[in-house]
């Protein structure tokens, strides 16, 4: 029984680390964006202040049960994905649920939260929320295709669906998958642009156009839950990329460096790009990313 409590403790620590790292990255992204725009920018811990403030709001409204539990659904997705993705390779404490799920499970648990959130947004009755949700779902259909192609290519090439196995393969071979399966990496990175919903793919929650879309009716602790869930989710996604393509990380510093390096890609791309409309975004994802996805599949089929 002891081991289960250790596991639970490890899981809680993982989630807390993910929360902190995710918020810090978001803060850094605000800072970097500000510097690119020739501004001083907020301090890197600004997001923590925001989160604390949201948590200390003294009132919160909801429009019904579904909106009330929507953030909890979102949280399930974030925490489950951070628990399923191997955070530190070979560490017993933080192995969490690594062996209980695999890539396909991850793909599906990743849409659980957004769907719950979408239901919550629908419950608010705000048309902006519903519009944002339809855009988000449509865009998701766009970027999931190259993303899945990349994953399928990896799975086919290495005959495993387990992320741990993929890390082990990379460490045995000594070559990161981003070099040994370059096309899959490119397709996955292009899909990641959409997954992080930074500009140019941020029409889902366009603040001026849709009044921040799905979350437009959420304030206070709901927004706090969503914000922390987003940060955990971002960390999970970054870790997944690191695990899949950058050979995983065996200690926290390596993890931070690698995840931040990956994080810079959508962020920097976003700072210099204007916003796409939904169908433009879908067509974007079904252009070059899809092409690279096919190349990746071809590459996997040949090798």
């Amino acid at each position, binding site marked *: 029984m002891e081991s289960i409590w250790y596991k639970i403790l490890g899981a809680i620590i993982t989630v807390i680390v993910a929360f902190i790292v995710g918020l810090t990255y978001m803060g850094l992204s605000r800072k970097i964006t500000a510097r690119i725009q020739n501004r001083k920018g*907020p301090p890197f811990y600004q997001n923590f202040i925001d989160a604390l*403030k949201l948590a200390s709001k003294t009132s919160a409204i909801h429009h019904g049960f579904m909106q009330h539990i929507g953030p909890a659904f979102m949280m399930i997705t974030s925490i489950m994905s951070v628990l399923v993705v191997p955070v530190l390779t070979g560490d017993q404490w933080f192995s969490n649920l690594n062996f209980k799920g695999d890539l396909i499970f991850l793909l599906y648990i990743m849409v659980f939260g957004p769907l719950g959130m979408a239901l919550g947004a629908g419950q608010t009755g705000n048309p902006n929320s519903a519009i944002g949700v339809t855009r988000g779902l449509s865009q998701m259909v766009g970027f999931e295709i190259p993303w899945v192609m990349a994953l399928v290519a990896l799975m086919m090439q290495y005959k495993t669906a387990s992320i741990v196995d993929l890390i082990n393969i990379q460490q045995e071979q000594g070559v990161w998958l981003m070099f040994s399966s370059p096309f899959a990496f490119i397709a996955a990175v292009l899909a990641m642009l959409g997954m992080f919903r930074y500009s140019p793919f941020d029409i889902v929650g366009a603040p001026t156009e849709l*009044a921040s879309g799905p979350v437009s009716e959420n304030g206070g602790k709901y927004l706090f839950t969503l914000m922390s869930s987003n940060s955990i989710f971002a960390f999970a996604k970054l870790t997944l990329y690191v695990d899949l393509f950058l050979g995983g990380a065996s200690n926290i510093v390596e993890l931070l460096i690698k995840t931040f390096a990956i994080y810079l890609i959508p962020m920097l791309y976003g700072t210099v790009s204007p916003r796409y409309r939904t169908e433009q975004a879908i067509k974007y994802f079904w252009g070059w990313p899809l092409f690279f996805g096919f190349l990746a599949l071809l590459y996997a089929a040949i090798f």
Partner: protein
Amino acid sequence: MINDKNSQKIVDIIQNWSRKHSIWVLAYGTGCGAIEIPPTMTSRYDAERLGVRGAATPRQADVLLITGYLTTKTLKRVIRVYEQMQDPKYVIGFGSCTINGGMYYDSYNTIKVLDKYLPVDVYINGCMPRPEAVLAGFGKLQQLIAEGKANGATKYKENLEWYRGNQKKIIPNWVMPEYNW
């Protein structure tokens, strides 16, 4: 744990600190003052370094920034927006029009004194106030929040009938839902 007085004080300090440094602004750009917001937020003056950030909807906002005159028609919406915001919340009156009507002092359709209708925490004078003044206004608000004096929302709640009476005086056809807390 919250019942303890000292710890309550500490919690208050932390909360006020966070509120002070994270001001999400819902700019109600009715009048000409709205044009002063972009320079305040962008590179030259960069209000974001103070934690000031735009919010898209009243549900997420902390500060309601009323940038200019309010007609009876827009006042209705402003009241509605204010009531939809979550506690704690603050109002900044921006420009002369909100203070005494400014150049619209004899207009048949604009209100002259905003604080009769909404609890204003900070007024920023000027027609229009320049971004420096706006930043100063935010600074003042931050100071008030840190001291715990920015209690417009409480005032509004406590004196709701008075405010409501004033509002209903110029909005005779009152169809809005009641603000019930």
